[in-house]
């Protein structure tokens, strides 16, 4: 009989994560907006639409509408707080850093984003956390197509 030690659930659902999933920041339809994109996770049904308002190369405003699990909603909420006011380049860099940290389980995430590091121990949930970021990148690229977690991360 094999026993695998359980990763602590409190590490996945940290207080900050649960708090953001219950009271997501910037969850609204943004009108007017200059970019938007939609993301789906076909495996679990998470759906998100991200709206952005860009000014002089900065993400002046960001909002989202989503239906999904606690990890997805909390990640979108934390993403919106962290990226608002940042330059386009900084947002892209942070998105790459976030994806890498979660898939590799290494590195540090700045500020409250660090609360999502626990997700890296739950391979089936990484896509829930990265979907908002992929959708934000699609919005910044003004990609017309709906993005899905499948086509963007074949290894996961």
């Amino acid at each position: 009989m094999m026993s695998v030690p359980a990763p602590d659930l409190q590490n996945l659902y940290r207080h900050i994560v649960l708090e953001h999933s219950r009271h997501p920041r910037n969850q609204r339809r943004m009108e007017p907006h200059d970019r938007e994109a939609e993301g789906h996770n076909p495996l679990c049904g998470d759906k998100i639409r991200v709206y952005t308002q860009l000014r002089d190369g900065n993400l002046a405003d960001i909002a989202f509408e989503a239906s999904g699990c606690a990890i997805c909603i909390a990640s979108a909420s934390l993403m919106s707080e962290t990226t608002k006011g940042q330059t386009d380049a900084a947002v892209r860099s942070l998105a790459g850093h976030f994806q890498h940290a979660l898939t590799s389980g290494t590195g540090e995430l700045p500020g409250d984003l660090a609360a999502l590091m626990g997700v890296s121990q739950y391979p089936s949930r990484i896509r829930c956390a990265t979907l908002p970021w992929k959708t934000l990148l699609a919005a910044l690229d003004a990609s017309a197509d709906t993005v899905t977690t499948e086509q963007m991360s074949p290894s996961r």
Partner: protein
Amino acid sequence: MTAASIDVAALRRDFPILAQQVNGHPLAYLDNAASSQRPLQVLDAVRHYYTHDHANIHRGVHTLSHRATDLYEGARETVRAFINAASVREIIFTRGTTEAINLVAFSFGQRLGPGDEILVTTMEHHSNIVPWQLLCERSGAVLRVAPINDAGELLFDEFVQLLGPRTRLVSVAHISNALGTVNPVKAMVAAARGRGIPVLLDGAQAIAHEAVDVRELDCDFYAFSGHKMCGPTGTGVLYGREAILRDMPPWQGGGDMILTVSFSGTTYNELPYRLEAGTPNIAGVVGLAAAIRYLTTLGMANIAAWEAQLLSYATAALVAIPGMKIVGTARHKAALVSFNVDGIHPHDLGTVLDQQGVAIRAGHHCAMPVMERFGLDGTARASFAFYNTTGEIDQLVAALRVAQRMFA
């Protein structure tokens, strides 16, 4: 813990996979509608086949090829007897239910043209929707959908009204994988065949849970998978009434399905080989026959009786949880419960339960039209097999309480 005449504690020893700790808790495997587990008898049969008897079938002059052929064709007879088909010519081995349905869509489907209709229901699995959508694209046929009520039951009168002069095939689930609804398939078949319309039953969720008699059902096709009935993955069966299979063209070309091949023309083999191209999953089929012997020894009536007890125990335990919403409350239900808990997304439930050793499915269950019908993104689903215990249901309920405390 014992029902009628099955000894659950004893038979669980045949399933070593169940006796493990997952994330520090005893495993409660409640995802049987996705795939069941296999008893040692099935593993032994596959190992014995590869250890002693393997060769290619239907073509060798040597002893091992004869043995392998006898085992493979013996398995066909085992399947025939299990579902009471009239002849082994009516048993086509496939990779699973999905391939069985695709076989019908590609082969039988060739007779469909623009304006012809295929009738399904709202509660179908994607594998009983998409092959027909693809056929409609190829042929110009139209897919019609019979609706269901809020309990997840077929609206029978509306189903009958949809049986029209252009309906060429009815293809419906025997049991819904997302809701647990047991359809009134005998009456559905009678209504369709009374109008001269053939019927395919998707038996993926039924075959391991109740006795299936294709001649009593009077269906034209019955499709099921080995891996949901304690058999190997990559095995499945299409039963087809011989009179209808006889006129169906080959759907895949290759070895075994031909009699003679020349560049001036090829003649096809007889049933069932005409519809089985290439070297099949011989070892898998040998394992499938062992699974059928295992189920038959337990007795399908005994299995059904115990699973009915598990369903009523689970339903009573779950409805007692505040904030619990059971999705699919048909009067005639199989042993699975789809549900949502207020304030907790099914995906989060799945993770929290897994951390307590409880394996369930979370999501749309490959039945997105069902989720749309109920206005849901998904559900959590606990699905039972004869080796499950009421203790495992208690473990599920305790784990749900933990999830509720976490997300309170």
